[in-house]
């Protein structure tokens, strides 16, 4: 089964037709406003890694404080995003801008994973540093750039559907 056929099958589901025919504005609204809870919170952890905000608090504490909200935010984004995708799966699949968005999303994930298995392993050494080491700063900056690019790609692709 090719990816395109999977998209075709997805479009035939009941949930897809419900989103397409009636729920779309609400799901889309939740997806847009969910930006505040997802990127709006992960952003503060990134800024802490850059030493640009909340710098007097340990990095681990900032993470603990924001963890649940980030998780809730990204859960909303992936659920609503999945529903929106299912509504017009074949058209979206063929859209170049959407592919850019997906690639950026994957890069954001890879960046977070690399951070986890490298500099974050030695966090106890720099947890309280006002300005974390360069590798941590790089991860924070890259995360900010990637997430805001995901937003831009998302908005632009919706215009070219």
């Amino acid at each position, binding site marked *: 089964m090719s990816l395109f056929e999977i998209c075709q099958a997805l479009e035939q589901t009941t949930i897809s037709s419900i989103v397409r025919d009636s729920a779309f504005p609400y799901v889309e609204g939740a997806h847009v406003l969910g930006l505040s809870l997802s990127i*709006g919170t992960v952003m503060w952890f990134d800024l802490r890694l850059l030493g640009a905000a909340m710098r007097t608090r340990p990095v681990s504490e900032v993470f603990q404080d924001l963890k649940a909200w980030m998780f809730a935010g990204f859960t909303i984004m992936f659920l609503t995003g999945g529903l929106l995708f299912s509504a017009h799966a074949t058209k979206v699949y063929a859209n170049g801008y959407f592919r850019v968005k997906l690639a950026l999303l994957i890069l954001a994930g890879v960046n977070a994973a690399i951070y986890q298995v490298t500099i974050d392993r030695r966090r106890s050494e720099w947890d309280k540093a006002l300005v974390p080491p360069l590798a941590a700063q790089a991860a924070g900056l890259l995360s900010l750039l990637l997430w805001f690019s995901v937003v831009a790609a998302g908005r632009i692709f919706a215009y070219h559907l």
Partner: protein
Amino acid sequence: MIWELLQPFVEWIGNTAFGQWLGQSTDRIAWLFVMHLFGLTLLLGTTIVLSIRLLGLGLLKQQLAQLSRDVAILRTTGLVLMLISGALIFTGGAVSYFEGQWFRQKMMLLLIALLFNFTLFRKVTNAEEGRYSPTLNRITAVLALLLWFSVGISGRAIAFF
């Protein structure tokens, strides 16, 4: 009544060369929407972070006034981005936007949200610890979330209804 008074002004804006130029290209409008979403992420994101603290749900080791200072620059940036991009988007389709009930509702809510933001919200979030009661803090947070998210929901509704 106030809307009727504004009508000639809106028609003039929409018919200026600049307004026509903005409205001509969907690409231009799409990029303005990207700016609008960046602003939304910053403004609603900081509203959520401050509300978490005001509601006593997290970030409790941070001094409220310190947290406010930390998020202030990005909060202001978000607000300015939203107002400028919003005004430009409006200019690109002034007459048709102006007729919409959701647009008018959004503007009323925005006005209330701005008034609230620069009075009670600013006062409570900049106060020293214990200056105001936990109850007032909670009321402020709930009002902030309700007002700003109502503005957001009305904004999304303009596009759909």
